[in-house]
């Protein structure tokens, strides 16, 4: 194919692509409607406000189902008198004169439709906006009986729901606040901060590009957040997915499950299990009532006061543990491991970092590459201890009252045992440099195996408790006290009416 043909082909396809692109973005070129500007989903310029109200009576004894659809304006739903739905529409018209604005506003209708207990609230703004180029905000303030199930779809406007039976909100380009809901809550938010508090049922929340605050949720909560921080206080079981933000939880009455990426995770007072993972940030846990499973890539893991067992795996950062009642399994690739007060022993593997265990009972198995190990049990050794350090040293404090069979080897360093009562039955290596020692303390007992490329040292110490204090339990997390509306008595059969 000649260069001329290739050039023509590129030209035709380029023109076609430009036409298709122009077609896709048509209508989005203008900066704003006549007489005003749109910046960040809001109109700016001279404007005039007009109000209209309407109400719809509900059949007696039936819980209302309220469906609201709006755009470019806020939606506020609050609990009101039983048996009736009251709506106030505030129309803000962006035109240079009041006459023009009033003439335009008169054409904007507040529409209440639906059958039986279903009430649909909306406006005819879509029909008007199709042919007009005028900035228009429609703000809806709605009072509905507390037993109402509320369903809201809104674009470019804040949504607030307070004191109803349940709420389902889909919102884009502004914030959402949901408070004191007796039942379930579902929120899908695009751009904007979200706050959900006092939820009597379950919570399902998805948010993109905004911070999320969740508090006092009685049931389980499932929250997905991207590009924003999540704060959760006093919730039921919590299932979180978070990317590019920070997570902080305080008081989880069930399991905590967090799948994070590029997100710092912090949680305290988790009543049951905690299963958390993240990348390029750390994990910090405190007072967990069950087992912990924590995985962090390129981030540190810190956990304290854990009632169950713990599995921690990290890369390029360390693991720091304090007062873990259950068995510990820690893996640190290119990181150190520090632990204090381990109640049921530990299995530790680390590379390019030291391992230090201060105060433990139970079996210990440590394997380190390019790092040293320092063990200070504090309590008399009563379970097997196996340590291997490649390109590192091993130091073991031997508390009074310990009884064990020793097998120690220093491949290229020195082996020192300064423990009263330790009898060595076999030594090897060069004179003056004991490379291998087998011995018994207090007649023997559990097996202690220490192997290192560098020095191996044993030092006698007085015995004591493994920790300054026992592991703290998660503080009591009570269900939300004021979640949900006060039940109201259905009124006598009202007449169906609508006035405007």
């Amino acid at each position, binding site marked *: 194919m000649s260069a001329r*043909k290739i050039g023509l082909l590129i030209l035709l396809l380029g*023109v*076609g692509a430009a*036409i*298709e692109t122009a*077609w896709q973005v048509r209508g989005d070129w203008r900066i704003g409607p006549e007489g005003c500007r749109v910046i960040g989903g809001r109109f700016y310029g001279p404007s005039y406000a007009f109000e209209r109200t309407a109400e719809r009576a509900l059949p007696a004894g039936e819980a209302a189902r309220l469906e609201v659809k709006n755009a470019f304006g806020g939606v506020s739903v609050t609990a009101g008198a039983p048996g009736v739905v009251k709506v106030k529409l505030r129309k803000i018209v962006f035109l240079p004169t009041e006459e023009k604005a009033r003439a335009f506003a008169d054409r904007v209708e507040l529409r209440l439709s639906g059958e039986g207990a279903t009430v649909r609230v909306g406006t005819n703004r879509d029909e008007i906006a199709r042919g007009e180029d005028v900035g228009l905000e429609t703000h809806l303030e709605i009072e509905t009986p507390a037993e109402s199930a509320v369903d809201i779809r809104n674009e470019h406007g804040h949504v607030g729901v307070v004191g109803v039976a349940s709420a389902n909100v889909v919102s884009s380009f502004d914030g959402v606040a949901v408070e004191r809901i007796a039942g379930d809550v579902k929120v899908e938010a695009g751009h904007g901060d979200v706050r959900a508090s006092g939820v009597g049922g379950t919570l399902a929340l998805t948010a993109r590009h905004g911070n999320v605050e969740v508090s006092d949720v009685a049931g389980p909560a499932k929250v997905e957040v991207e590009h924003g921080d999540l704060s959760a206080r006093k919730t039921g079981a919590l299932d979180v997915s978070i990317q590019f933000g920070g997570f902080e939880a305080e008081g989880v009455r069930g399991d905590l499950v967090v799948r994070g990426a590029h997100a710092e995770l912090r949680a305290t007072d988790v009543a049951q299990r905690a299963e958390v993972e993240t990348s390029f940030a750390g994990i910090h846990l405190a007072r967990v009532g069950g087992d912990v499973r924590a995985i962090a890539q390129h981030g540190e893991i810190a956990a304290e006061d854990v009632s169950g067992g713990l599995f921690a795996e990290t890369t390029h950062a360390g693991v720091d543990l304090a007062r873990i009642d259950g068995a510990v399994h820690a893996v640190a690739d290119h990181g150190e491991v520090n632990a204090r007060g381990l109640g049921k022993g530990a299995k530790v593997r680390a590379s390019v970092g030291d391992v230090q265990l201060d105060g433990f009972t139970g079996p210990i198995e440590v394997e380190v590459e390019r790092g040293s190990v320092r063990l200070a049990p504090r309590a008399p050794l009563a379970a097997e201890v196996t340590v291997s350090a490649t390109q590192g040293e091993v130091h073991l404090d031997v508390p009074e009252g310990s009884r064990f069979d020793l097998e120690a080897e220093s491949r290229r360093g020195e082996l020192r045992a300064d423990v009263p009562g330790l009898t060595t039955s076999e030594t090897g290596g060069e004179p003056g440099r004991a490379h291998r020692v087998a011995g018994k303390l207090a007649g023997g007992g559990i097996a202690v195996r220490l192997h290192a490329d560098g020095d191996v040292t044993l030092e006698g110490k007085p015995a004591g408790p493994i920790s300054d204090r026992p592991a703290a339990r998660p503080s009591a997390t009570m269900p939300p006290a004021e979640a949900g509306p006060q039940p109201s008595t259905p009124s006598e059969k009202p007449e169906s009416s609508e006035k405007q």
Partner: protein
Amino acid sequence: MSRPAFSPEGLTLGVCLVALGVLWTLSNLGRVEMLPVLRTWWPLSLALWGVLELAELLIRRSSGRS
């Protein structure tokens, strides 16, 4: 070697330019909306070119036989 009867790419480019000029003028006169028409019909330029290439091939073969 005989010269081709016509240049398909030159003819395609010429037809496209004529069509674009006419369309633009009609758009300025308010007779048609340019973007929807362009968006609908621009792939025809590829089809036209392809047809002209085939035509040139056939002409070359037939002239080669004679």
